[in-house]
Structure formats: C-alpha cells, structure tokens
C-alpha cells in the first residue's frame, strides 16, 4: 500500500518540479516525514482515510453488486448518486423547515434516506426492465454505451428541474448543506484527538452499509440466489429460479444504494449536491470497483479502504509538503493504472472474470 503511494508521490513530484532534488528540499522532506510519523498526525490521517473509505464503499457498493451478477458496468451509477443527493436534500429541506432540533433532524435524515433508497430503487428497476434487459445478448460494450447515454439524459433532466425550480443559482446547493445538524459540523475529542463529527457519521454509515449488504448477500435466501446467479446464471436458471427477475432486483438494489450514498454526500461540503457530482463520484467508484476486482464485494470493501487511506495520506503530504492541488485526485487514478498493470483482475477478482 505505502509502496504504491510513495511511487505515485515521487513520480508526481519529479514531473511537476523539473528540478533536481537539492539538499534543502530533501531536508524538508525528512522533516515532513518526522511530522507525518507523529502519533497525533498519523491518527488523524487514519480517521480521515476511514471516512473517505466509507464514502467510497458506499458509492461503489451498488456498482459492484450490479457488475457481479449481470456483468453490466453501469455508467449511470454516478448520475443515480447525484439524483439521490438532490432528492434527499429536497426531502430534508422540506421536512426540516423551521429549525428542528438536531435529534429530529437526524431522525428525519434516516426517514429521507429510506425514501430516497426506495425511489431510486424503483427508478433502477424501471431502467433494467425497460432498457438494459434488451442488451444482454449483445457484446458488453453496448451496455456501457447505453448506460453512458442514460447518464446524459439523467444529468440533463436534473439540470432542467433544478433550473425550473430555481434551486441552484450557485454551483452547489447550499440549502441542502444547511439542513445538517450542528453537532456534525463540530469536532469531537476522542482520546486527545479531535475528530470531525461528520467523519464519524460517515464512518458509521459506511460500516452500516457494508454490514447490511454483507448480511443480505450471505445471510438471506435472496442473497444466496444472487450469489448463485453470479457464479453460474444458466445453472441457476435450470434450478427453476427466474434469473431475469433477480437481475431486476439487483439493479434496483444497486441504484438504491447509489441514491443513499448521494444522500450522505449532500451533507459533506467536499462533495455537496450539484449536477457534476455524477461524474465526480462515478470515476472514484470505478477505480474502487476495479482495484477490488470487478464484481467481488469483499474486494470492493478492501479497495475502498486502500484507496481511502492512500487518498488521505497523499492529501496530507500534498497539503503540508508538496504544493500541487491536483495530486490527491491523481493518485486515485494512479492506483487504478498501477493495479491494472500488476494485477488486471484486481485484488480479489477471479482470473476468468478478468479475462473477458
């Protein structure tokens, strides 16, 4: 993990500075390393990494579910997340109204989360039945193309709605950010370490998502059918299970999870509800899913942790030592590229899946 991170860092540093390493820079680097290794900093970077990982796992969870069973790489996933952010924000803004207390807000959040999940699951199901179903017997490229087209349509529709209701004079929607309970914006002291409340909330929700999906896949009968379907769809069909219907359910589920993730992002000032959020979340989701191995849920969780941690470490380095704003973003894609070179099937991917 750190190997990849350091390789990314040094390559970036060299190509942007175009200068030979001089002693001063080197001394600064050693100083920074010392700073970085201090327990306080290390711990805060760790918490930051965890909260990033939680976000990544929520965005990527639905994507990997859909790919695992159906082999469809859903390009519209980011747009579904974005719709979730707006829808959730809209529900919150309407419900919170005249300044409810923090606990009420939190309760409302979970109600709105369930509603967003339901609406997007419905949308996802409709998409599968109406459009994607027609393409299963074509080469996989056509599914990429179709879902890419859907992205255009969904983004533009949202833009029309946003414009029509005058929601968004600015680039991100401040009203939704305003519904955040105050205690999430404050920092909490844990063992002498100050942690942002929102970070903890994100970590908790991420863990909850992972646990819920995990339990659904391994502990329920339907999860068993889904796993069987992704192992061998034909055989499952031969056992008398309607795999087509399972496809619809999984697609709906994946879309719902995407929406729920969007709902969470709405409160995070680093993301916030905006139309470009679709593209912004889609790419990290792809990276996480591919690094973990397409279609393996375990891989996605591990990859989200990996990417989140590397991202947090790099962000710390580039804020404190090397000034190059784009580099944390760049490291995410460097992880993708390095992973595909070293191990194309991903961390937990099966060779056979990686081959097609």
């Amino acid at each position, binding site marked *: 993990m750190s190997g990849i991170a350091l390789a990314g860092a040094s390559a970036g540093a060299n190509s942007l500075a175009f200068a030979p390493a001089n002693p001063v820079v080197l001394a600064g680097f050693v100083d920074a390393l010392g700073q970085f290794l201090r327990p306080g900093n290390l711990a805060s970077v760790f918490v930051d990494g965890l909260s990033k990982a939680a976000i990544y796992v929520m965005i990527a969870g639905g994507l990997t579910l859909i790919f695992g069973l159906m082999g469809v790489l859903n390009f519209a996933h980011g747009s579904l997340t974005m719709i979730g952010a707006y829808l959730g924000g809209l529900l919150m803004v309407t419900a919170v109204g005249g300044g409810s207390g923090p606990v009420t807000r939190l309760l409302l959040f979970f109600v709105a989360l369930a509603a967003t999940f339901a609406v997007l699951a419905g949308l996802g199901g409709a998409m599968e039945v109406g459009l994607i179903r027609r393409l299963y017997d074509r080469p996989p490229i056509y599914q990429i193309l179709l879902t890419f*087209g859907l992205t255009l349509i969904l983004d533009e529709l949202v833009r029309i709605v946003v414009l029509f209701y005058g929601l968004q004079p600015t680039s991100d929607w401040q009203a939704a950010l305003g519904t955040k309970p105050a205690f999430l914006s404050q920092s909490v002291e844990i063992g002498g370490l100050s942690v942002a409340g929102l970070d903890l909330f994100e970590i908790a929700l991420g863990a909850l998502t992972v646990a819920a999906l995990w339990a659904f896949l391994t502990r329920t009968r339907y999860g068993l059918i889904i796993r069987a379907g992704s192992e061998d769809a034909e055989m499952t069909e031969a056992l008398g299970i309607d795999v087509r219907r399972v496809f619809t359910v999984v697609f709906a589920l994946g879309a719902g999870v995407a929406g729920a993730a969007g709902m969470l992002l709405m409160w995070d000032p680093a993301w916030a509800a905006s139309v470009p959020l679709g593209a912004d979340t889609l790419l990290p989701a792809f990276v996480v899913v*591919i690094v973990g191995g397409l279609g393996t849920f375990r891989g996605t969780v591990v990859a989200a942790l990996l990417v989140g941690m590397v991202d947090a470490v790099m962000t710390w380095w580039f804020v404190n030592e090397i000034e190059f704003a784009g580099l944390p973003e760049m490291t995410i894609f460097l992880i993708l590229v390095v992973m595909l070179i070293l191990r194309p099937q991903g961390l937990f991917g099966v060779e056979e899946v990686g081959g*097609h």
Partner: protein
Amino acid sequence: MYSVLVTSPLGAEMTTVLPDVETMITVFYFALFAMSFDFISGYTGYLSFGHAAFYGTGAYFVVLASNGKIPFVAVDTPFVVLLVLAGLAAVTLSLLIGAVSFRLTGVYFAMITLGFSQVLYVFVRGWDYAASNPRDGPAVLERTEPFSVGVPGVDSLNLAIGQLSGDEIEGLFGLLNFSATEVSYYMVGLVALVCYFAMQRIIHSPFGKVMVAIRENEERAAAIGYDTFWYKLGAFAVSAFFAAVAGGLLAGFQRSVSPENSFYFLVTGDALLAAIIGGFGTLAGPLYGYLFDETVTEFLSKTGEGGGLLPYLRSHLGEGTLSTEVYNGLTVQQGIDTFLNGHAALYVGVVFVLFVLFVPNGLLGTVRDRLGGPVGKEIAERLRSDEK
C-alpha cells in the same frame, strides 16, 4: 451551398435548422477526433475511453510550442509542421499507454485508458508550467501571427485560420470572395479531409483487414499467425496521431485550450456519441454523427446564434402566443427556455440511447447495410438492375 439554401424561399426555416459556418469548423476538427476514436474503437473493437488524452496532447502541444515552451521547437514553426510534431508526440504517448493497456481487453481496456487520460487531465489542470492559471488552460501569447495551413516555405499557398485573425480572400478568379471564417472553414476542412483519406487508406490496406479480423475474432486472427498485439498497438498509434492533429486544429483555430475541452473524459464521451449516432465502425460516420449533435445543440442553443428555435418562433408566432400562459404562470416562451433551449444534451442523449437500442450500426452503417457496400457503387448497380 449554405448561402443558396439560406436565400431560398425556405430561407428562414433553413437558418433555423442549419448550423452556421463557424459551427461547421468545429464540426470538422471534432469530427476528425471522433473518426480517430472510431478508427481504434470501431475497427479493432477496443473501446479507447481515454482517447481525449491524445486530443489534449495535440492541442497543448500546439499552444505550448507557440509560446516557446517546448524545447527545440521555435515559436514561429509553421503550423503544419507543428501538427505533425504534435501527432508524433501523441504517437509516443500512445505507445507507452498502449504497451501497458493492450494486455487487457473489453471493460478493463476501456477503464485503464480512462485511468491514464484522467491522470493526464488532473496533471494538466495543476501544471503551472503550461499556463499561469492551469485550471483555465493556456492561450497563445508569444506568437502574434495567425496559424496557417499550407505548404511550409511557400507563402502563397499558406492560408491562415483562426476565429478572428484568419486570412480573407477577395477576387479569387475574379469571382469568389471568402471571409476569414470561410477561409478557416475550407482550410480546416481540407486538413480533416486529408486525414480522413489517410485513415481510409489504412483501413482498406492489409493492415486494416487485420484490425477488422481482431474485432471479429481476436483468437482466430492470432491463430492465423498475426501477432495481434503489435497490430493493435500500431492501430492505436495511428489513431493517436490523427487525434492529436484534430487537437492541434482546435488549438490553431481557437488559439487557446482548456483542460475541460481537451483532456476531460467527457470529450471522449462526445466522440463516442458522434461515432454511435453516425455509425460505429464506419470511418465517415462520426462526421455525420457530430454534425447531428452540433445541429441539435445549435438549434436549441440559448443565445440563438445563427438561427435556432427561439428566434424563429419569435418572428413567426409573435409575442402574443409566446407570452400566453400555459400552466401556473408559465408562458410558452418560458417553457421553451426551460425545457428546450440549452438542453440539447438531453435530446442528443435520447437519440443516442435509441440508436444503441435499435440502430446499433448508426446512420451510415445502416445505409450501407441496406444498400450493401459503398453507397455510390450500389446505387449505380440498382439503377442498372431497374433498367432490365
């Protein structure tokens, strides 16, 4: 042709529907990029989702070279030479990316190329060597004279292109007058046409046949004895070359580039759109696809430059109809503003999805399927068979 149509009895309708000359220049250079995308994606079946990397390389190369920021390339190097150099730079890049990427197939190939291009995009967006404000991208500052297309060294054959600074020609053969924009139109079109023929030539060569063989069944192509890796890499390099030329034309015409209109992955998305609507795996198809895209965009543009829906309706329906309330205080004009103007992406997206579902071969591909073979040849045969 344009002026004939516009001055015809249907003039008003034509101005509304047809794109204006300036848009057509964009269509030319972007269609060239879409063709180069189709060259690799449509003919070998490897979806190069990061093709914008090469387009951006070409565009940045030209702008940086004309700011004297590329070593050993003088500021006043002829534009055509710059295009070729930009192409070669992209070829080098494509060999590096391709050597790694072509070990993968299908979705993975699309993703790794996307990954590479995003790395470049983020890098360029923060690279303060390229521009003082890298997020907005560089503009041509050092080089004051416009870029000209022509034979280097022969002044009379060079014609400058550019949005505001191109050449004008008056009294050619005593008859023809061209405005600066029209000169740019023909010159950019000329470069695009030459590149089109070059790619067409490659596709119809034995090399091109191997590319199609790889698309149809790579294992068989390998079994016959072709080293498919090198063929794929070769095709990728050729495609990168022309993508960079297209990017160079963009930079030459606009005199500035931004990371968003060159390296961003949605630029590749636009090329994909054009290729699918026009015909995936037909080289000329992307031109028609992008022409369609731009026409719809301009027809529904907010400003209504060069015609468009709103100015047309305003002059034909009159204010009375437009300010009629339809629903809850929403007038017709507001309705059009809200749901139509500026939202071309929605309608292009719908058309795109319909094409993916029902017309997988695209406009040109379907025409070819119906007529079987190159259109011109087939029409002649049909006419002959009708005579019997």
